[in-house]
């Protein structure tokens, strides 16, 4: 049984397919990472270093930005990721004319 799933070649995170324990080595196809803390199933693990401010990439898409330096094997979640959507409406403005 595979331990993690990488959804896109551009991704810098993988998804835990089962609960992962601290210190465990996981991966396949030449990609091996040491898990730094317990990872619940379905959660994300960094496979590269993600410097503070850089995008977290899943599905080949930016899903957020690192709020601190993230090391390979680290749990990537709300504690170290910034949600880019702060005020949706201001970030996606429509002019008065466009609103119809």
């Amino acid at each position, binding site marked *: 049984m595979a331990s993690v799933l990488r959804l896109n070649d551009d991704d810098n995170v993988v998804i835990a397919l089962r609960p992962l324990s601290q210190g465990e080595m996981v991966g396949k196809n030449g990609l091996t990472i040491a898990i730094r803390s317990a990872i619940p199933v379905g959660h994300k693990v960094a496979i590269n270093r993600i410097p503070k401010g850089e995008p977290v990439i899943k599905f080949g898409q930016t899903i957020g930005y690192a709020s601190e330096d993230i090391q390979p094997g680290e749990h990537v979640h709300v504690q170290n*990721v910034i949600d880019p959507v702060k005020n949706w409406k201001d970030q996606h403005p429509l002019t008065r004319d466009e609103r119809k």
Partner: protein
Amino acid sequence: MELEGYRRIGGKIGVRNHVLFLATVVCSNTIVRGIATAWSDVVGIENNAGCVALADDQKFNHDMLLGLARNPNVGAVVFVGLGCEQAPAKDLFRELEGEKPVAYVHIQEEGGTSKTLEKCHILAKQFIEEIRNKSKETFGMDELIIATKCGGSDWTTTIASNPAVGIVSDRVVQAGGTSLMGETAGWFGAEEALLRRVRNEQTKLDILRLLHGKYDESERRGTKIEEANPTPGNIAGGITTLAEKAMGTIKKSGESPIEGVLSIGEYPRHPGLWLMDNPGMDIGSISGMAGAGAQIILFTTGRGTPAGSPICPVIKISASPQGMKLMGENIDVDISDIITDGASIVSGADRIEIAIQKVIKGQLTRSELLGHREFIMPQMGVL
């Protein structure tokens, strides 16, 4: 894929051949239920709305009723009205006349419940006889109209079953067919990814207008979209941001270009991938898809759900080992080996495609087999 279906007047092709009794207003529901219960070859759609509605809901009701009646899976239809509702059965009958066998009754004109039931039994028998021997003809994927939906989602939906359905959606579109994706509120956070795929500027504007409308309505009722999402349950399940949640949701639409945005009850104007405005709530969403002419609905689920439709086969797909264990009875396609054995997402898509072929050939989906024929008329103010 070579498929078989029922060719309708006007050229559209259906994968089922239903006799439909359709309540144009809530007042007609008892009649529709009575007929659908009495005749195994009749499906009934009861209406939760249809009168004293504001203009937008009034339009949804009219367009949905017509859209459901026009669905190519419906071989014949009887509109059952009271007689004083906002979209009178007689008017809908006139709009549909000539397209397929169609009739209407008004309870007030027939003279009450008993006499209306009596007339409806006669109509049911007549229409069943009229369409039951209709022969099937072959058609290709270019005439296929699928719609994609996810519900009862968990962490496996966004990473395995939605991407697998996305591949199927792309294959249908590449073969010249049509794919529909709804759940408007699920696009918040993935709008950039959708806007990059539009065919024209108008579609871009249509998407943003729809989202602004939903945002404002939601805020007026006390909820800011970005504050309510991701939910605590999402976060516990591993979803970190709204963008991540939305990206997982829209994976069902694959990567094809977006032709345009359809409103409730509106049919796609040509093949390709279309977005449709419809509720996130499962039954409202698949009801909207049936009302937009979908032949088949691909429904991904993690936790499992029994949801079905009166007129569209709903193919339930799950990649969740837990969901399969608990709710396997309600799932048509088990692709949980993507999670447990490292099976590829493409292999999941292949199995979904095989299921589509079987269901079109006549195999009943689990929801059809188990009698799930839920319906709800989409209304404003429901996300």
